[in-house]
Structure formats: structure tokens, C-alpha cells
């Protein structure tokens, strides 16, 4: 009898457990639209506005900073800044305590508020990032700088917000160095130019007397390396952006080109051509020791280090056609990684380390693409008549490159412009420059 009662209880338990077992649902899809975000103008009181006019000739620098932030977030393709006309709460109140229901009403999921003061020739900024749906503060920061840095303040806020909401570092407080081009195609004047990543604050670093090509940032300092001409030979140069000092790199009895810094900034890697053969060399910037990395009777060029300094990618025609290769940084263990149709060139290792960007030429079209570092997973992001020279944003999410348009027989209609595209391949944008532009190179984050 007892056994029967026990059995009854066990069966009852099993049935009841089954009836109320916890259900699990897998959510494997979501909404890939950009995140709706409200960027409230940073509040500035009347006294500060007067100082703003005196110092910067700008009446409301708080509004201007918020426009910088809004533009950055928009061009990232990951955020949808909402129209300010829809805002129900004024900036001064919103900064103290947002009425979350007002912001939820206009479909904002995140909100940026802040306050700016200019006093004693100092710009003080505080900003907050709010989660509207959770009704809580996600981040609050304050800093002080000189008033003329107000655009950088906007970039730094953008980076902080981007990092908090996406989980990866931003890329807004950065600069682009490029070759500025003017004049007809047959007589172009080319200068080195540098600007903020959003196209503002352009400065010209050379006068245009000599041809300049392929400028590249040092990831750790304010130095750039580029190609120019010395005694009618293309040679690799070093330029200190702060001081304007420049020098020829090394004493090579021939042509040097395609320079790039190692990720630690201590070496330059480049091609050296002699007697019709070009190989890859490095030069240590401290002791100036030159080391030969490849030794092959083919054209080896466009070298780029992996972010851990352990590998180098480059292009070579050693297979008969230009393809991409990877080797250890001492030159050993060379492996071809590109096997698709067409020619591959200008490989650049991503700062994240997971991808290599490249230019591909196939059936008369140029493509910018990415592949994994073993050559698998090739993805072509954009196609055009002529485009090349991709350079990574410091977070490895966006590529900048240049694109030329076709000219007629007289050389008319030609233009060269900078473009950017992110890894989704959907967010393609022209980058504004004062003149025509080519050969862009993206700096590291200026503030970390």
C-alpha cells in the first residue's frame, strides 16, 4: 500500500513539473535600424554666451558642440539622431533631470544632455548619457580645456557615447592625412594635407613644389611617413607634424616607396627597388638599422604589419599575377592568401587584427574589400570605376579610401574624392575635403 501511495506522489510530481516547466524562447533576430538618439543642445547660460562670443565669435558654443556630436553619430550609421524640432524638454531642465516619458514619446532610446561654461578663458563641459527606456543615467563626465578646442570636445563626447552604446572604441577624435590635389589631370599640384575626420580644420603641410604620395600616420606619435622626390628619385620621408621637421629615411641607392609604420611606431616598413626588382625592408627609427625582409625576384610591395607586430601582409606578383601574401615579421613562412579572380593589392591589416582590407581589380572594375587573415571570407564592400588605398579607422570598423572619376579625352571631368564605408558595406559616404583628395590615412585616437 505504501509503495502505491509513493508511486502516486511521484507520478503527480512529474505531471505537475511538466505542466509548469519554464519555457525558453530563442531570440535570434532583431531590429538592425540605427539606434534613435536625442542630442539635446548643451546648455549655456547668458554670461557664458557673452564669453563665448568674445572668445570664439560663436554665440552658442553648446549648440555647436551638440551639432558636432550629432553629425558624428549620424555618419557612423549606427545611430539615428532625432530632429531637435521634436524635443519637448528644454536643454537646461533636461540636463538636470530628463522627463523620460517626454523623450520616450518621440521614440528616443538614448539621450545626451550637457552644460557648457566659458570662464577665465577655460571651456568647462559636463555631459550625461541617459537610457530613456530604463529611466537611468548611463554615463556622466566633465572636463576642462581651452575654448578653441570646442570641436574636439564634440568628438570626445561622441567617442564616449559611441563606446558606451556599442561596446567598442570610437573613432571621432581622429585626423585624416591625405594628398590634396588641384589643377588639370596632366599638371596636378599635390600637397600633404591634414584635417579632422569630419573634414574640418584642414591644414596644408607641404607647399606643392614636389610630388607627394602615400602619407601614413605613426600610430603612436605625431609623425607621418610619405613618399616624395629627392634628386629626382622617389624616396620615403619622415615628417613631424608638430614641428614641421622632415627628413629622408635611410640612405638607399635607389627608389624607396610604399612606407608604413609598425604598430609600435618604432620601425618603418617599405619597398626598396633596385635593378627592376623590389623587396621589402624595415628601418629601425632609433638605431637606423635596415633589415631586408623579402628576397625574391618579383615585385614585393605595400607591406602592412599585423597589430601585434608578429606578421606582415604585402602584395607580390611572384605567382605571375599580383596577389596578397602573409608572412612572419622576420620574412619567413610566406603564404599566399588571395585566390579569387582578378588582381589584389594594397593590403592593410585591421587594427582589430581580424581582417585584411585590400583593393581588387577584376574585369576593369576596382573593388574595396576585406578578407580574414588566412584569406577566407572575402567580402567586396564597394565597386567603382577607379578606387583604391583603403585605410582603417582606429577601431577597425570603417575604411577610408579614394575614388577617381573618368575624364574625357581632354582630361576634363576628372576628380578624386575621399570616401568611407563601414564593414556592413551599406554605410558609404563621401568625406568632405576642401580640394580633390587621394591617398588617405587615418590616425589613432588623439585622446585615449
Amino acid at each position: 500500500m505504501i509503495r502505491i501511495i509513493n508511486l502516486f506522489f511521484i507520478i503527480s510530481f512529474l505531471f505537475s513539473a511538466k505542466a509548469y516547466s519554464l519555457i525558453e524562447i530563442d531570440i535570434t533576430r532583431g531590429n538592425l535600424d540605427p539606434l534613435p538618439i536625442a542630442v539635446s543642445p548643451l546648455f549655456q547660460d547668458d554670461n557664458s554666451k557673452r564669453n563665448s562670443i568674445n572668445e570664439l565669435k560663436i554665440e552658442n558654443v553648446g549648440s555647436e558642440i551638440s551639432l558636432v556630436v550629432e553629425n558624428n553619430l549620424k555618419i557612423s550609421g549606427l545611430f539615428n539622431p532625432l530632429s531637435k524640432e521634436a524635443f519637448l524638454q528644454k536643454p537646461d531642465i533636461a540636463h538636470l533631470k530628463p522627463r523620460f516619458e517626454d523623450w520616450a514619446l518621440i521614440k528616443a532610446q538614448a539621450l545626451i544632455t550637457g552644460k557648457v561654461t566659458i570662464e577665465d578663458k577655460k571651456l568647462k563641459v559636463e555631459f550625461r548619457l541617459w537610457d530613456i527606456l530604463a529611466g537611468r543615467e548611463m554615463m556622466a563626465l566633465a572636463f576642462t580645456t581651452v575654448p578653441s578646442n570646442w570641436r574636439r570636445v564634440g568628438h570626445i563626447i561622441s567617442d564616449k557615447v559611441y563606446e558606451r552604446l556599442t561596446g567598442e572604441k570610437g573613432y571621432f577624435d581622429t585626423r585624416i592625412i591625405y594628398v590634396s590635389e588641384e589643377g588639370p589631370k596632366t599638371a596636378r599640384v599635390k600637397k600633404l594635407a591634414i584635417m579632422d575626420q569630419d573634414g574640418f580644420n584642414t591644414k596644408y603641410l607641404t607647399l606643392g613644389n614636389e610630388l607627394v604620395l602615400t602619407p601614413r600616420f605613426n600610430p603612436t606619435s605625431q609623425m607621418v611617413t610619405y613618399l616624395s622626390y629627392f634628386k629626382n628619385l622617389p624616396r620615403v620621408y619622415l615628417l613631424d607634424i608638430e614641428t614641421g621637421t622632415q627628413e629622408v629615411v635611410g640612405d638607399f641607392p635607389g627608389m624607396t616607396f610604399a612606407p608604413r609604420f609598425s604598430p609600435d611606431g618604432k620601425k618603418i616598413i617599405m619597398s626598396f627597388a633596385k635593378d627592376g626588382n623590389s623587396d621589402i625592408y624595415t628601418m629601425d627609427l632609433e638605431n637606423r638599422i635596415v633589415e631586408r625582409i623579402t628576397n625574391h625576384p618579383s615585385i614585393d610591395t605595400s607591406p602592412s604589419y599585423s597589430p601585434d607586430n608578429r606578421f606582415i601582409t604585402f602584395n607580390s606578383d611572384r605567382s605571375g599575377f599580383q596577389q596578397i601574401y602573409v608572412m612572419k615579421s622576420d620574412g619567413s613562412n610566406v603564404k599566399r592568401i588571395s585566390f579569387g579572380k582578378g588582381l589584389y593589392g594594397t593590403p592593410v591589416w585591421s587594427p582589430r587584427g581580424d581582417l585584411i582590407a585590400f583593393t581588387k581589380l577584376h574585369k576593369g572594375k576596382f573593388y574595396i574589400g576585406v578578407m580574414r587573415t588566412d584569406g577566407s571570407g572575402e567580402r567586396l564592400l564597394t565597386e567603382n570605376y577607379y578606387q583604391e588605398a583603403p585605410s582603417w579607422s582606429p577601431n577597425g570598423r570603417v575604411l577610408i579610401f579614394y575614388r577617381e572619376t573618368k575624364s574625357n579625352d581632354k582630361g576634363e571631368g576628372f576628380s578624386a574624392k575621399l570616401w568611407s564605408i563601414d564593414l556592413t558595406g551599406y554605410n558609404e559616404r563621401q568625406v568632405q575635403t576642401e580640394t580633390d583628395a587621394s591617398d588617405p590615412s587615418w590616425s589613432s585616437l588623439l585622446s585615449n
Partner: protein
Amino acid sequence: MDYSKLTLSEEDALKAQIFTCWSVPIGLPFSEDLLVRVKLQLKPDGSIENLEMLDHVKMNTPGKEKFRTLADSVRRAIQLCNPLKVPTSGYERWKNMILNFDARDMLGG
């Protein structure tokens, strides 16, 4: 028939709601950490009685900022979808549920 589970159409209806509410942080690089599990306790009208992040310890672990970003997006999705449109009957079946927000396929390398 297993009365402890949702029917396929009930499960599909719940999923469809949540898909539209979940703004996936598409900037996140692919990793195996792109799974956030949430336990919900619902009221009979579908509104949320209690929300428990099952991996909440990870949210404040240094080096797990990307997980925190994903978990934040999941929390926003649930708040945006609150109250859920739930089946009209069988409250005991769905008053507690676990949602596995898995972004690995969407953000796959």
C-alpha cells in the same frame, strides 16, 4: 499535446514582437559572448512583473563591456515591448519564461 509549452504560433507571435523591439548594437564585433539570457515573470495582462538578467555578474565585470552593451540593448528591448501581447489563455504556462537573446548569427564574422 504538451500543455506545458507554448504552441508554435504562440511562440512565433511572441518572437515577432520582440524582434521589432530589439535594436541590436550592430557595431559589436563577433564573439561567443553575444548571448544574453533573461528570466521574465509576467502578469496575466503580459506586463512585466520581474526581470532578471541571468548573467548579471558579467555586466559589471571589467573586460566585459561588450556584453554589458548587448545586455543593455536587451533590457531596452524588453522595456520597449512591455506589455507583451501574450496568449489569452494558459497563464500558468507562460507566466515565467527565459528569453535567450542570441546575436551571434546577426553579427557573425
